[in-house]
């Protein structure tokens, strides 16, 4: 029995009459202490997949199991680091982390909780910004707060939903390195969602590609045997790294071949037919005819 498991899960979203099967037949097994990265296209359903694990979204079919027991809802045993940080803008750095710590470690004394919070702020190098509000922080600093908040509740599993996606390249590289260092200290189970193969290979023990949607599903997992601790600068020159990256990228590109490459656009025509101005009579004017018409055309590239 795997530590964390998804079996035959699928999810369909309805929007008006349109229904899109985002994920189909997702199967995933993760061992305790493993760092797994799922790489996929934007909009392929990556966030839905990680929300199966967090419990924020339930699959339509199939099941999600933690140590054999089904996951029915979110909980602090699975800490999430959101892409958009989800910090509460009216609370300071300390306040944001305190909200989580006060809730999860209720039985601790106030002093112990305060020390615990201070330690986590120091861990992500934010002690000078302890009393700042999120809008006074840069994107990278906000994400650090989010990491500290999640780690402070000591979850068994860390779920990271494109954690560095909104950051500039240099900040992203720094935060990847910092996060790896923090992880290597206690090697929690981590599921990382990303659209960046480099990031996945740098950080994870195992990379699993998610095929292009709709009906996205997981591809074969690719073990990353590169020795730890990994340094980005060293990896760039590594032959193995390039080999794995080519493998991941090829698989993802192939998976999207079945999608027609091109642009689909809808032309919305005026919902009306012109009035006949030749009609002379005052009594029997022909009313303008309305008909709903949407013409869809596909431009091949």
């Amino acid at each position, binding site marked *: 029995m795997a530590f964390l498991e998804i079996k035959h899960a699928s999810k369909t979203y309805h929007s008006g009459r349109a229904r899109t099967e985002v994920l189909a037949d997702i199967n995933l097994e993760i061992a305790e202490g493993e760092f797994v990265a799922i790489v996929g296209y934007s909009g392929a359903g990556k966030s839905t997949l990680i929300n199966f694990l967090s419990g*924020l979204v339930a699959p339509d079919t199939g099941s999600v199991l933690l140590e054999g027991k089904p996951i029915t809802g979110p*909980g602090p045993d699975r800490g999430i680091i959101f892409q*958009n940080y989800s910090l509460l*803008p009216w609370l300071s750095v300390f306040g944001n982390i305190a*909200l989580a710590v006060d809730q999860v470690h209720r039985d601790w004394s106030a002093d112990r909780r305060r020390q615990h919070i201070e330690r986590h702020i120091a861990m992500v190098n934010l002690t000078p910004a302890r009393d700042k509000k999120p*809008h006074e922080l840069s994107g990278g600093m906000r994400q650090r707060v989010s990491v500290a908040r999640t780690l402070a509740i000591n979850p068994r599993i860390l779920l990271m939903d494109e954690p560095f996606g909104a950051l500039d390249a240099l900040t992203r590289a720094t935060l990847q390195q910092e996060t790896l260092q923090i992880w290597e200290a206690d090697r929690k189970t981590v599921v990382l969602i990303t659209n960046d193969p480099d990031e996945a290979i740098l950080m994870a023990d195992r990379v699993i590609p998610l095929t292009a949607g709709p009906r996205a599903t997981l591809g074969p997992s690719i073990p990353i045997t590169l020795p730890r601790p990994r340094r980005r600068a060293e990896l760039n020159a590594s032959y193995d790294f390039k080999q794995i990256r080519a493998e991941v990228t090829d698989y993802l590109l192939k998976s999207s071949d079945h999608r027609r490459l091109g642009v689909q656009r809808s032309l919305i025509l005026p919902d009306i037919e012109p009035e006949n101005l030749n009609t002379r009579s005052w009594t029997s004017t022909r009313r303008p005819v309305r008909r709903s018409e949407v013409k869809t055309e596909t431009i091949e590239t």
Partner: protein
Amino acid sequence: MSTTAPSGSSRVELFDAVVRYLFLNLGVPALAVALFLAAWSGVASTVKVSFGALPGPSAVANEAGNLWQDHLAERQRESDFYKRQTERRAAFLAKSPQGEWKDRRYAGRPTYIDQIVTSLKTVFVGFLIASLVAVPLGVVCGLSRAFNTAINPFVQIFKPVSPLAWLPIVMILVSALYNPTEPLFEKAFISSAIVVALCSLWPTLINTALGVASIDQDFLNVARVLRLSWFDKIFKIVLPAALPLIFTGLRLSLSVGWMVLIAAEMLAQNPGLGKFVWDMFQNGSSQTLAQIMVAVFTIGGIGFLLDRIMFALQRAVTFGRTAH
């Protein structure tokens, strides 16, 4: 020589900028007010009403001074009265130590300042009632689509009702239900405050509901992941997140309340600014118009001040936008 010291030309530019700023922000409004006063005094002398000419700015300013003098004189009379009473009591008790003495309260008429204070008290009590009803109701509306749909018809129908329509109903209900032996508040005061509440709770209700309903889903996800209790979710996530819109609603409510108050006081005979205007109108003396105009400017000025206070509060609770 320091290189940061402004050179001659840039100092002139700075001076120009300051002058332009002052002219735009102080000079232009002052000019507009001066023009208005000139036009007013020009027109006023030509308009004849049944009791003399329309008062100009100087007549109105004069009347404001008179009202202030009246206030001071009345206060003087009051303190004189109490002084005399104390002396008389001392004399009475000296003559017959077993005798029973009863202190009397001064029964002078309320001055213009007293009436302003009464109006402010009334509007705050009404506003407080409205807030206590509207904020919790708005939170429930924002959290529950069903409740919001249920309450929506009432909001839509009662929102546009004039205070003058509510007042008779409220007055009758207050007379029927509020009959304590030692009344803490006047009936007119309670009726006015309730009418203010009835008319001013809608903006707060609607804005609170909107604020709660439009909370970022991510904030609620944080609450779900942490498994916050319902109580903690409301007080730690929902209310703080909705606070900027709640305060927008409260600000609108207070200005509606202040506007409604004058009408309510006129009809309910609550001794505030509304009653003052009505009494002056009934007087029909040569100062009537000037006195009413003083009241108009007072009402406007206080309304403006209340709005500024609420605006400052609103700014204080709006997070993230103070940086500009």
